[in-house]
């Protein structure tokens, strides 16, 4: 009887699925019951009210108002912003490094090719945590003390306490410049659409690129000038022990951005290289045969096809970089893991609550990006006959 059920496909699948559900539920039940028992044993409950009590610790880098009397919730938000900050600049750096090294890997110039190869192999075969610690160590131990700071034009100072630069202080009128920029970008989009329609209708081309670039640069500059330069700079100055004032990038932030940028950049370089190589050479030859100029061939034929291959793994590298930024805790940069999952956890002892918040934040970032990726992949996938 049972043997017959097993031999038929439908009953067998049903049995397997029931077993899977039962196994999964009982595992969850086992963990849940244990958790309840354990919490009862040590006289604890699961309670998120601590989020609204003062945190009692300082965070050295905060873009929003924060001091030790702020709540744990605010500390969490500061952590999220810090993670976003390092991820943003890391992604920027990694993209620049990755595309440069990836194109250089394809160069016919022997030296350029080999240097890029060496860089890629060396940076991706060394753990990212090691890169972070190495960068941090070099900055903290090998750069000069603020007293002997390396300076560039007496505006930027390179010290073992970080990089100091003039800090722009925006006056309210600066919003006018921002508005001008927005208008310029909006106008550029409209002009692009108009030019495209016109070309499709009449075949006449308008110099879209240069018009738009000059409009986007010129309009904000004009507004800037008309409003009477509504920006002042606060310069860093050396006082007794350290620099004061100005914009400071902490060694932790610098080390983290640099290390994540270099490490992820190497992976992006390989993605870019294989993406360009994957576009068959026949495409280039066909374009040349049609009399299309080399730079148009690259822009109109090769890149659109290569990007289709490059973009999905590129986004997943960006996601990896964001997740790797959690290693910030090794150098003491105050990101999500270090604030709510580190100091808040140790102060309140609410491990379950704090870790669940950390996991939920990362999970929501990852899942929303992967949902976007699924949508994007569906959009760009070739419709095959």
């Amino acid at each position, binding site marked *: 009887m049972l043997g017959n059920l097993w031999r038929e496909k439908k009953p067998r699948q049903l049995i397997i699925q029931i077993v*899977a559900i039962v196994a999964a539920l009982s595992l969850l039940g086992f963990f849940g019951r244990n958790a309840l028992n354990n919490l009862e044993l040590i006289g604890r409950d699961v309670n998120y009210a601590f989020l609204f009590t003062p945190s009692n610790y300082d965070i050295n880098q905060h873009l929003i108002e924060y001091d030790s009397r702020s709540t744990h919730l605010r500390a969490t938000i500061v952590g999220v912003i810090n993670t976003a900050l390092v991820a943003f600049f890391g992604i920027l750096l990694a993209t620049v490094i990755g595309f440069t090294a990836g194109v250089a890997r394809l160069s016919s110039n022997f030296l350029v090719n080999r240097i890029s190869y060496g860089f890629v192999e060396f940076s991706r075969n060394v753990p990212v945590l090691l890169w972070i610690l190495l960068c941090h160590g070099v900055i903290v131990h090998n750069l000069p003390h603020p007293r002997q700071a390396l300076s560039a034009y007496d505006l930027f100072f390179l010290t073992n306490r970080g990089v100091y630069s003039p800090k722009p202080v925006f006056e309210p009128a600066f919003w006018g410049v921002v508005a001008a920029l927005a208008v310029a970008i909006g106008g550029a989009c409209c002009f692009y659409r108009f030019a495209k329609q016109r070309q499709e209708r009449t075949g006449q081309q308008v110099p879209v690129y240069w018009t738009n670039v000059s409009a986007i640069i010129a309009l904000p500059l004009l507004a800037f000038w008309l409003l009477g330069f509504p920006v002042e700079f606060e310069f860093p100055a050396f006082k007794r022990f350290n620099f004061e004032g100005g914009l400071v990038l902490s060694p932790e932030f610098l080390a983290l951005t640099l290390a994540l940028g270099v490490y992820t950049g190497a992976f992006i370089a390989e993605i870019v290289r294989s993406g360009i190589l994957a576009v068959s050479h026949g495409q280039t030859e066909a374009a040349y045969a049609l009399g299309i100029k080399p730079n148009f061939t690259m822009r109109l034929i090769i890149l659109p096809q290569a990007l289709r291959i490059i973009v999905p793994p590129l986004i997943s590298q960006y996601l990896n970089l964001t997740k790797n930024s959690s290693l910030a805790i090794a150098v003491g940069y105050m990101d999500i893991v270090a604030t709510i999952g580190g100091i808040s956890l140790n102060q309140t002892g609410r491990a379950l609550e704090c*870790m669940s918040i950390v996991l939920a934040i990362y999970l929501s970032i990852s899942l929303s990006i992967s949902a976007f990726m699924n949508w994007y992949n569906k959009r760009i996938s070739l419709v095959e006959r």
Partner: protein
Amino acid sequence: MTGSSPEQENHQELPPPRTQVGVVGWIRGNLLSSPTDIVLTALSIYLLYELIPPIANWMFFDAVFADVEHRRECREIGAGACWAVVWKRFDQFMYGFYPEHLRWRVNLTFGLLFVALIPLLYDRVKGRRYLLRLPLIYPVFAFCMLWGGWFGLAPVESSKFGGFLLTMLIGVTGIVVSLPLGVALSLGRHSSMPVVRTLSIWYIEFIRGVPLITLLFVASTLLNYFMPPGTYFDLLLRVIIIVIMFSAAYLAEVVRGGLAAIPQGQYEAADALGLNYAKSIRLIILPQALKISIPGIMNTFIGLYKDTTLVIVVGLLDPLGIGRAALADSRWQGLSTELYIFVAMGFFISCFAMSRYSLYLERKLDTGYKND
């Protein structure tokens, strides 16, 4: 065109122009082929000139290799790197705090790893069929050797494990166990049974959605909540389990790509031959899917090996942890660059070797057949 005219036969074959062959030809072709090329070459040479001499000086020519006791003595001898800090702790970097008189056990286990790997890695070994049993016995053997407590071997606590021993242990165990788990998960995700598929997707997406470091934190701080009261889990064991769970999810995604690339006709052909599910997967689908996913699988393995450094956040002493401990010693403070570069070299060698092997495997298994 091919018919030779009488004049041609009388002429000797001329050598190619001297500027097109040999060293000169190579330089012209590869370094100076166009104005842009010349500029790029000049820039590259400048970059190398700026980078290589200072680094070489720091690492070798100005470096201090003498066996000194304090970084101050180093500074008196030379301005470069102070390698004594590495030599002083070399044993720790290799074995951690494994008892000195028992280290032969580690050496033996490490050496036999390669003996066990040979029949797996190369298929031209004689008697491979019998030798293939070695990798199956090896894990049991390695466990007995390293932990001891059996066959009259003195037991060693896992908290004494450290250095590259720990890296190898976590890395190799992770690689060996996570591959079958990952394949099973990817089959689950590819399955036609909705429950199995959903459970696999949840697991994979959850693990891939959070950083490894947070999972390690969960293992070190939260696991006690979820176990029956009084259960004790070895920290090293917990870390290994987490690493396995983590990389299994990534492997599942990689293998899924391979499974998706198999044309539907292969499944249908297997059905037509009357193979059941297990056989069609084992004999038809997986061999092809795994071959396609070799680069991804090897990359995941390399990633796992590199991720073993994260165990320092839960207090295990891998080479990086040993290096940080050395920095805490007031005699060696500030020598972080030397220590980290040494550890980086160790990782670079093993990871680079793995990626080279992956290339070799890809070339060897390439049948020249591509479905495009």
